[in-house]
């Protein structure tokens, strides 16, 4: 029942000495009589991937909204690093078909403001081509945003979040509706990004095994933080098994099989592997 915020030995050495990008302390929130979050704390450091898992209704989205500043908690506080730049990838977005908008325009609208005047603003456009290329969405640019597929939309939303060169990337269920191949590619890409750009990444998921392969810390939320730590230790904890039941065996696949003392998560993207049994044990 306790949250292991002080349990620092789960973090890699480098994160020990950095200031967290964002830090939530003892958050509580109720909607009416229903307590949604109970004494929830967490922090995210640069280059760290934190995955928030939990069953439906566990308060994952609510916690995300508080961290993003979209909701105010009843008590507790969120401390952000000064000038923290957040890139946000919403779970889904619905755009009315009456709005004529191409994918290209959608991305341009997300560009970061460089100079703000009363009527004129200047935008930095250097990143647009780079991420369009890396996420392979160039062929979509002239298409209406309402007509792209689910997987394409995820890549577009990710590109829009990345355009802003965020310090912290927040992804709400980034692989929902994406096939296994697409999921693996996305996770691989995110892993590259955090090493290359130094982003901290927070993602919400109710997928239990693929997510964890690159995760430094898993937070298991069920209104309160019921367990947290390195994926391996979380999967073995009693709280986790109580929450997710028997199928947690599938968790075993996320183990890295490398020695953390000599290899501090800085290896390239080649250690993403598809697990043959993954699909059958996939649960959400």
């Amino acid at each position, binding site marked *: 029942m306790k949250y292991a915020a002080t349990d620092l030995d789960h973090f890699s050495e480098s994160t020990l000495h950095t200031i967290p990008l964002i830090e939530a302390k003892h958050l509580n929130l109720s909607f009416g009589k229903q307590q949604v979050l109970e004494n929830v704390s967490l922090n995210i450091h640069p280059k760290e991937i934190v995955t928030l898992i939990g069953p439906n209704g566990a308060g994952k989205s609510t916690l995300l*909204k508080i961290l*993003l*500043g*979209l909701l105010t908690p009843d008590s507790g506080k969120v401390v952000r690093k000064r000038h923290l730049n*957040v890139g*946000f990838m*919403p779970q889904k*977005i619905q*755009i*009315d078909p*009456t*709005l*004529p*908008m*191409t994918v290209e*325009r*959608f991305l341009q*609208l*997300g560009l970061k*403001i460089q100079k703000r005047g*009363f*009527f004129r*603003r200047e935008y930095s456009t250097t990143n647009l081509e780079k991420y369009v290329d890396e996420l392979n969405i160039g062929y979509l640019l002239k*298409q*209406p945003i309402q007509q792209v597929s689910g997987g394409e939309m995820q890549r577009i939303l990710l590109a*829009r979040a990345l355009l*802003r060169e965020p310090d912290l990337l*927040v992804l709400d269920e980034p692989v929902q509706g994406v096939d296994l191949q697409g999921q693996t590619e996305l996770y691989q890409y995110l892993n590259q990004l955090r090493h290359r750009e130094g982003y901290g990444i927070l993602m919400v998921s109710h997928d239990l095994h693929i997510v964890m392969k690159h995760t430094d810390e898993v937070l298991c939320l069920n209104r309160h933080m019921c367990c947290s730590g390195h994926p391996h230790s979380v999967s073995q904890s009693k709280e986790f098994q109580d929450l997710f039941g028997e199928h947690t065996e599938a968790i075993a696949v996320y183990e890295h099989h490398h020695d953390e003392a000599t290899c501090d998560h800085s290896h390239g993207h080649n250690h993403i592997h598809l697990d043959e049994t993954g699909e059958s044990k996939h649960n959400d």
Partner: protein
Amino acid sequence: MIEMTQFLVFALLGGIGLALISAPLGVFMVWQRQSYFGATLAHSALLGISLGLLLQTDLTITVIVVSMVIAWGIFTLSHSKQLSSDTLLGILAHSSLALGLVLISLQNSVQIDIMGYLFGDILSITKTDLWLIAFTGVLILLFYWRHWRDLLNITLNPQLAQVEGTAVKTVQLQYILLLAFMIALSMKIVGILLITSLLIIPPAAARRISDTPEKMLLISMLIGLLSVLGGLFASYHFDLPPGASIVLAATAFFAILQLKKAPM
């Protein structure tokens, strides 16, 4: 003869002015699926008229103030809690309309033609009205010049916009107050029917031939303008009610453009 041309010229100028200022407000009502919002504000403007009669204050100003207060109320309530904004709008629209009617009936001495406010009389536009329309036009121009991109981002996804640093609530509130101001003002001049139609129908018609938001705005303005010209022309030549003729002209544009396939 001179008087005759003057009221026609005023009607034309007023109508064109309203067509031009309702398009920018209307496109966002369509994109954000809020066409009911305009109707609610128009209904509650009737409450302003009856309050103005009761308190013997200037009708135009009272209607504007009451509409803006109600718009602000809708905005605050819909941001605070629970009730879906559809339900909320329904309750506010009809209760304020009912309250307005009751207040009017309590004043025995006053005979008021509610039909006049439903359909208005574009032929009775005065010089003051024209100045008010021009003033509103300037306000809308400034607001859109500054916040066009913010409005588009809010339309795409308010939460994403807020995380990206758009002052979502401020911009939304300003938009809603402008809308209330414009509806209140034009309701007294041209009636509820005409103003809610000018807000919605030209953008809906323009969608078929627009491939960017900016084009859709310009084409909406153009269609609104042509509807006013066409409606007034028909009204003058065939002795038809002018407001209704304008609405039908806009609807005709909408119907014709439905035959065309959307460009994207």
